[in-house]
């Protein structure tokens, strides 16, 4: 009893405990090990570890390397992740495969859309039958006597066909060699591709800059080489370099809008080096976006403005501010000069005056300093820049005006730079005014101190430029902000590429069920009852539709044929008009025209108004015949057979006082008129235009007629139309 109790207590206590299953152990040797008996070994008590095995090698100095390698391998390599469940893995596989198929199917987009849009298609699309016209029929000719005689004279010259296939197939060895070569090529190609991909991935701007510079240098070197060997080619090369520059100019790089530039702008407040960099960047941008002027223009402007001073040569993109510019410029210039001298007799191009490069650089640097100031203010507001300019002007005169107190702190940061400007300006003892008639900058290089004398003008110009640019940018930003959501919607709609074609000629598209009737069932005749229902004002609202008047569609100007008959209609119309009116007024002086018109209209309305219809059968349920008077009761009963018309009957001339519209006049033509604009057309005008153009050979010339009646689908009698094949994707036109 107690033992049993004890057992029970034990059992109860054990309920919460984890059941520990004994570790499976093999009792008898078997070939097949059941996978269900393989339980994970307990943690930390792993049966066999690699280290155990490698430890055995400890003492052997020979195998030390192995141990090392295994250890490093263990560190690096992690165990593979557990494979996904089959269902999930399948799902993933299916979805990726479907995407692939989708992409594959997209290839057909163009063909399908063009086929759908085209007005004429001829099937079979791809001709299977290809007659070999050349060899069998056309080439054979009976030779003339002259030809025969000529042939006897001429030795048949040997023709070397380099590209024709070798007569004998390659030997095995040759084939192998060729294959080897191909393989090598492939490997090299793929290596190069990989390298290119890797390089493309490099995000470092510095790296790319260096690369670009190297490229330019390479180009120059090439150019130099060419210069000596082939001057014509060299000039071409020069053009190419110029074109690259133009392309760069077209792409709006080197602006202050990039991520980098923006970050620099922020930093520039606190750091002068950043400021310098930014200025440099801006300058490059300006240089690149400067328009290149034709040579003759330049010479003229030079003559007018600064006759003798050496000018800046903006002709060459590489001259000024790109880092490599100096070397580029010097030799390019030299070469250009050389070339022009050489070709002086041939071309009338004016000689390019060589500019002192260092001077140019300095002038540009000055400009850049000015730019920094402008740039930073621009980031605040345009108004502020104006204030600045005014300030500068004042200071220029000499009056020191204290700065406004409410200016933001950002401006103060600009100050040191400005001070530099001011100080430099004060250095200038004498000032020459530089007029900018074109977009060309004209640097004056009398001496080193002169370099910044026109700083005011420059400053003004740049500030103006900036204002303009800022406005443009602002507007474009606004436009883009407005436009963006719309574009998004469009993108959502067309999940594939938009390949919409415009149909050549629009035809109405009818997509509605057939008008299906049972055999023997006549269509409802138009009777008085249906007419009454149709004209019920309660239902009238829904049915009122705009009719298209045929007179609108067929509107042609009356033409006056050249005849000798007198034009009676148009004779003396204008002259007698007034007299006639007067006469009418005189004649009807006593009559009340208004009264009579109203009477007429009333009569018209009454006459047109549909009468109530009596459907009762006289004599039904009572005596009928002449002289039989119906009882009142009967009359009341018969009243339900009377189809009543609505009291107020809508007319088109209801509210038009002095107008009677005869609605019955075009009843006959009405049923031929289109009541609404059919589908692909959007306006009545479009539709009318489509109807107006005639097709028949009675009205258009034969060729146009043939073109217009070309059927949408043409098939060949007895020709099997095979499904489309992939060849059509490869087929080239013409």
């Amino acid at each position, binding site marked *: 009893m107690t033992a049993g109790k004890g057992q029970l207590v034990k059992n109860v206590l054990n309920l919460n405990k984890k059941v520990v299953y004994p570790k499976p152990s093999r009792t008898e040797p078997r070939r097949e090990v059941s996978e269900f008996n393989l339980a994970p070994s307990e943690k930390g008590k792993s049966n066999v570890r690699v280290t155990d095995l490698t430890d055995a090698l400890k003492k052997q100095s020979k195998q030390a390397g192995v141990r090392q390698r295994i250890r490093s391998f263990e560190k690096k390599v992690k165990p593979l992740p557990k494979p996904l469940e089959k269902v999930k893995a399948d799902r993933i596989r299916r979805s990726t495969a479907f995407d692939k*198929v989708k992409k594959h199917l997209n290839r057909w987009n163009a063909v399908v859309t063009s086929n759908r849009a085209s007005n004429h298609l001829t099937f079979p699309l791809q001709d299977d039958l290809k007659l070999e016209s050349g060899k069998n029929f056309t080439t054979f000719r009976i030779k003339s006597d002259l030809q025969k005689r000529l042939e006897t004279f001429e030795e048949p010259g040997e023709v070397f066909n380099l590209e024709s296939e070798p007569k004998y197939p390659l030997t095995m060895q040759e084939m192998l060699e060729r294959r080897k070569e191909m393989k090598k090529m492939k490997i090299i190609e793929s290596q190069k591709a990989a390298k290119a991909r890797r390089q493309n991935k490099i995000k470092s701007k510095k790296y790319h800059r260096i690369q670009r510079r190297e490229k330019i240098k390479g180009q120059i070197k090439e150019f130099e080489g060419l210069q000596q060997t082939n001057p014509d080619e060299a000039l071409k090369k020069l053009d190419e370099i110029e074109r690259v520059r133009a392309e760069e100019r077209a792409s709006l790089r080197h602006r202050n809008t990039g991520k980098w530039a923006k970050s620099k702008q922020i930093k520039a407040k606190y750091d002068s080096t950043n400021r310098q960099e930014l200025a440099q960047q801006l300058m490059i941008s300006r240089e690149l976006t400067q328009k290149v002027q034709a040579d003759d223009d330049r010479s003229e402007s030079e003559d007018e403005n600064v006759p003798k001073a050496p000018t800046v040569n903006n002709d060459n993109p590489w001259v000024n501010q790109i880092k490599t510019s100096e070397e580029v410029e010097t030799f390019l210039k030299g070469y250009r000069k050389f070339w022009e001298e050489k070709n002086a007799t041939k071309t009338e191009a004016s000689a390019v005056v060589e500019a002192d490069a260092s001077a140019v650089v300095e002038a540009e640097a000055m400009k850049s300093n000015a730019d920094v100031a402008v740039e930073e203010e621009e980031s605040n507001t345009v108004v502020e820049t104006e204030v600045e300019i005014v300030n500068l002007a004042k200071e220029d005169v000499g009056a020191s005006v204290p700065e406004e107190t409410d200016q933001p702190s950002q401006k103060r940061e600009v100050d040191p730079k400005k001070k530099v400007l001011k100080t430099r300006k004060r250095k200038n003892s004498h000032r020459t005014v530089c007029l900018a008639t074109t977009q060309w900058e004209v640097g004056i290089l009398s001496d080193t101190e002169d370099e910044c004398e026109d700083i005011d003008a420059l400053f003004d110009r740049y500030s103006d430029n900036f204002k303009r640019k800022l406005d443009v940018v602002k507007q474009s930003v606004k436009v883009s902000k407005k436009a963006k959501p719309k574009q998004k919607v469009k993108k959502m709609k067309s999940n594939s590429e938009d390949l919409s074609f415009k149909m050549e000629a629009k035809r109405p598209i009818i997509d509605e069920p057939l008008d299906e*009737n049972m055999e023997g069932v006549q269509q409802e005749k138009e009777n008085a009852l249906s007419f009454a229902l149709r004209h019920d004002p309660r239902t009238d609202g829904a049915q009122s539709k705009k009719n298209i008047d045929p007179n609108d569609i067929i509107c042609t100007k009356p033409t006056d044929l050249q005849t000798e008959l007198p034009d009676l209609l148009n004779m003396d119309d204008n002259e007698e008009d007034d007299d006639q009116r007067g006469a009418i007024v005189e004649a009807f002086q006593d009559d009340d025209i208004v009264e009579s018109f109203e009477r007429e209209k009333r009569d018209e309305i009454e006459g047109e108004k549909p009468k109530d219809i009596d459907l009762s059968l006289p004599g039904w349920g009572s005596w009928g015949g002449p002289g039989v008077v119906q009882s009142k009761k009967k009359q009341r009963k018969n009243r339900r057979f009377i189809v009543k018309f609505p009291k107020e009957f809508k007319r088109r001339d209801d509210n038009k006082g002095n107008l009677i519209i005869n609605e019955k006049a075009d009843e006959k033509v009405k049923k*031929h008129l289109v009541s609404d604009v059919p589908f692909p057309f959007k306006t009545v005008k479009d539709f009318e235009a489509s109807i107006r153009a005639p097709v028949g050979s009675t009205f258009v010339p034969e060729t146009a007629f043939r073109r217009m009646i070309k059927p949408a689908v043409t098939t060949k009698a007895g020709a099997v139309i095979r499904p489309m094949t992939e060849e059509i994707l490869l087929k080239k036109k013409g």
Partner: protein
Amino acid sequence: MKVKVLSRNPDDYLRETKRDIHKTPRNYDPNLHPFESAREYVRALNAVKLERVFAKPFVGSLDGHRDGISCLSKHPKQLSILLSGSYDGEIRIWDVPQKLCIRSFVAHDGIVRSITYEPKGRCFFTLGDDKTIKTWNTAAPSSPEDEEPINTILSKTVVTGISHHQSKPIFATCGEICQIWEESRSEPIHTYKWGVDSLHDIAFNPIESNLLATCASNRSIILYDTRDTGPLRKVIMKLRPNRLVWNPMEAFIFTCANEDYNLYSFDTRWLKKPVNVHVDHVSAVIDLDYSPTGKEFVSGSYDKSIRIFEAGKGHSREIYHTKRMQRLTCVLWSLDNKYILSGSDEMNIRIWKARASEKLGTLKPRERTALQYSEVLKEKYATHPQIRRIARHRQVPKHIYNAQNELRTIKQKIKRKEANRRTHSKKGEVPFVPERTKHIVKEDI
């Protein structure tokens, strides 16, 4: 005396030969033709009336089967040859222009489920309820007694449909599972299975020939890629699709005939909803076939009628029916885009014109131009009410007419009910569901 005489050069008005057309000098100045559009309208009206007068689409019937037609197949290269299988296991090969049966033999025990030609037309494959796939030579043996299949494959599972690859010697069958076979082997080279439901129709894409689609009995359409992965995607519909056909000119479009009286055109890339819903039948649609131009397709329905749809439109342009034609089991569009062939329950194969009023035979050039001109006029004035009325009017059998009325009332009732529910419930609770998405349950990955 001087007499003034009107004299003309006979070259200006005389024809050189009797066969020339009369010379008619014309002035095309539009001002001289004030009624041109009115005249063309009248011409269009006459043309459309004549079209209806000449609309006699029935060409003839092929009589000979002793049980209902179960399947048809067209020869891939020869227009005149037609293959038909019936419920009693008999196969007949027809010479269509002569309306003659040139060969007949019993191929299977029980129903012939499906037939297909090899793409070069040298042999054809038949499937039967006896779980066998038999290959037959197209060339007839010397005597009908020697009728023997070239090859017989005993399938382990039930097979119900077969479709041949467009170029390779590979064909696919469906049944319990989807299997891909190589012509020379007796074991399937691939077996695809997704879910447990049986498949009743299979179709290889004729353009992207490694794509495959099947209709499953769980109301779904399954897409396969035969190259590597097998099943790709599945779309489940509200009611069962009976037959699936790919558009032979648009690689990604397929259309399925559905049990819910409609046909659905899908874009393979966007299976979430059909591109188009083709309505008009009043009973389950059993079979369909695309015209070889890919612009139209024909459908045969359980409502004893054949309808022709334009691929991009939701309503049929034509309905064919005869009094004696029973439930349709299969339809075909001939490879020259001229004829339609239909097999029905009552043992007849019928030949129809694809365009009801088309004149058969050769046309003289002037006749052809006149017909083309009237065709253009009909198209141009198609929306004018009189022309539209005449062009779109059809007589239909009583049962179709009544069924249409019934369906219309049902539809109206549903619409009304939904509108009522919408007005009496919170805003947005009863959403507007477009017709295209209504019939799809879900797209399954």
